[in-house]
C-alpha cells in the first residue's frame, strides 16, 4: 500500500513536467500497421509477438500436461482450473451440446487474445527496436494491434459460424431462421408478415456480414488505442528514464482491457453462434 501511494505521488509530481513537454514530443505515434523487424525481412514485429505468444502457450501446455496426475498440482492444477472455468462459462452460453463441439475454438481464441494482449505489457515491447528515419521501429508490437491478426480470427470464426450453422440446422432451417416469420401467424396476418420478415432477413444478412468486420476493428481499435496511449504518455516525460511514470496507472487499466477484450471477442462469437443454433442438440435431450 505504501509502495502504491509512493508511486502515485511520484506520478503526480511528474505530471506537470510531462504536460509541459508534451508538445515537443508529439511525434511519438505508433503506426497503424505492423512493420518488418528489419528492412527486407518479410517478418513483422506483431508476427514476432504472436509467435512468442504461441510459444508461451505451447510450452505452458506441454509443461502442464506432460505428467498428468489424477490428483493435480502446480501447473496442471492451474491449467485445469482455466480450462474447466472456461468450459463451464461457455456451457452457460452455448448449452451442453454446442459447447462440446465448439469449446476448442472459443477457448483458443480467448487464450490467444489474452496472452497476446498481456504480452504487450511486458517492459520492452514497443520500445526496443531500430532507428529508422529518426524514429524507433519496435522489434515487437502488440499482436492484436495488427489488423491482419484480428481479421484472421474474425474470418476464421465467420467460416466456422457458417459451417456450424449449416450442419446443425440444415440449409432449409438456416434460411428459415433468417427469413421466415417468427411467431404463430395465420391467414392474412401471415401474408402480411412474410414480406416484413423478408426485409428483416435482408437486414439480418447485412448484420451477419458486418459481424466479422466489427469483431476485427473492435479488437484492433482497443488494443491499438491502448498501445498508442502508452506510447504518447511515454513521450510526455522530459527524461527517458522517467518515461515509465505516466504510463504506470494505465498499465493496470491495460491489464483489464486486455482481459476484457479477450472476453468480449469470445463472448460475442459464442453468442452469435448460439443465436443461429438455438435449437441445436435439443433432440438429444
Amino acid at each position: 500500500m505504501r509502495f502504491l501511494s509512493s508511486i502515485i505521488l511520484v506520478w503526480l509530481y511528474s505530471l506537470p513536467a510531462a504536460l509541459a513537454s508534451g508538445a515537443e514530443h508529439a511525434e511519438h505515434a505508433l503506426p497503424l500497421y505492423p512493420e518488418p523487424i528489419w528492412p527486407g525481412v518479410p517478418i513483422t514485429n506483431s508476427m514476432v509477438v504472436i509467435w512468442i505468444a504461441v510459444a508461451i502457450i505451447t510450452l505452458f501446455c506441454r509443461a502442464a500436461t506432460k505428467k498428468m496426475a489424477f490428483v493435480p498440482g502446480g501447473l496442471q492444477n492451474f491449467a485445469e482450473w482455466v480450462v474447466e472455468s472456461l468450459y463451464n462459462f461457455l456451457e452457460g452460453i452455448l448449452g451442453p451440446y454446442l459447447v462440446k463441439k465448439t469449446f476448442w475454438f472459443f477457448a483458443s481464441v480467448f487464450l490467444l487474445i489474452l496472452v497476446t494482449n498481456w504480452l504487450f505489457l511486458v517492459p520492452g515491447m514497443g520500445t526496443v527496436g531500430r532507428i529508422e528515419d529518426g524514429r524507433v521501429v519496435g522489434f515487437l508490437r502488440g499482436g492484436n494491434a495488427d489488423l491482419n491478426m484480428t481479421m484472421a480470427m474474425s474470418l476464421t470464426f465467420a467460416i466456422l459460424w457458417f459451417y456450424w450453422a449449416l450442419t446443425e440446422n440444415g440449409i432449409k432451417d438456416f434460411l428459415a431462421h433468417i427469413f421466415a416469420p417468427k411467431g404463430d401467424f395465420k391467414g392474412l396476418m401471415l401474408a402480411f408478415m412474410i414480406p416484413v420478415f423478408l426485409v428483416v432477413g435482408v437486414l439480418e444478412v447485412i448484420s451477419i456480414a458486418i459481424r466479422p468486420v466489427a469483431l476485427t476493428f473492435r479488437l484492433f481499435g482497443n488494443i491499438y488505442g491502448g498501445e498508442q496511449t502508452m506510447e504518447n504518455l511515454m513521450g510526455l516525460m522530459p527524461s527517458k528514464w522517467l518515461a515509465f511514470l505516466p504510463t504506470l496507472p494505465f498499465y493496470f487499466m491495460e491489464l483489464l482491457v486486455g482481459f476484457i477484450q479477450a472476453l468480449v471477442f469470445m463472448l460475442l462469437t459464442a453468442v452469435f453462434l448460439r443465436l443461429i443454433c438455438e435449437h441445436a442438440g435439443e433432440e438429444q435431450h
Partner: protein
Amino acid sequence: MTMLLASAPENGITVIFNTFGVTLPYFVASCINFFVVIWVLKRFAFGPIQSMLEERRARIADGEAKLKQIEAQLAEPEANTAAAIAKAAADAQHMIDEAREGAAVLSEQKAQEAIAQAHQILAKAEVAAKADRERLTVELKREFGRLVAATTAQVSGKVLTTEDQSRINEETLTRVEA
C-alpha cells in the same frame, strides 16, 4: 508490399487495407499462427485436460455410486440382523408360550394323576379300613359271643349248646347294634 487487393481498383476497402497494412502474406501468416495455436491447445491442452476432467468426474460419480452401494450393503446386514432378532424374539416367545402351555397341561395332568392316586389311596384305605372293621367286628362278635356264652353258662350253670350260643350271640349283637 503486396497488398491483399492490389489488383482491385482504389476503392474504400483497398484504402482501409493500405492504411492498416493488411497484406495477403501477413494475413495468411496470421491465419497460420491462429491455426497453430488452435492445434496446439486442442492437442496438448484441451484434449488431455478435458479427458482428465472427464475421467475424474466419472471416477467421482463411480465413487459416489460405490458409496451408495456400500451404504446399502451396510444397511442390509443391519436390516437382516434386525429381522433375525425379531424372528428369534418371535420364536422365543412362541417357545415360551408353548412351554407355558405344555407346563400347564403337564401340571394339570400331574394334578389329575395325583388326585386320581389320592382317590385310589383313599379308596384302598377305605377298603382296608372297611375290611379291618369287618374283621374286627367279626372278631368282636366272636369274642363277645364267647364272653356272653361263658357268662351265661357260669350264671345259669348250664352247658349251652351250639344253637343256644348262636341264639344268645345274635340277640346280644342285635341289642348292642341297636
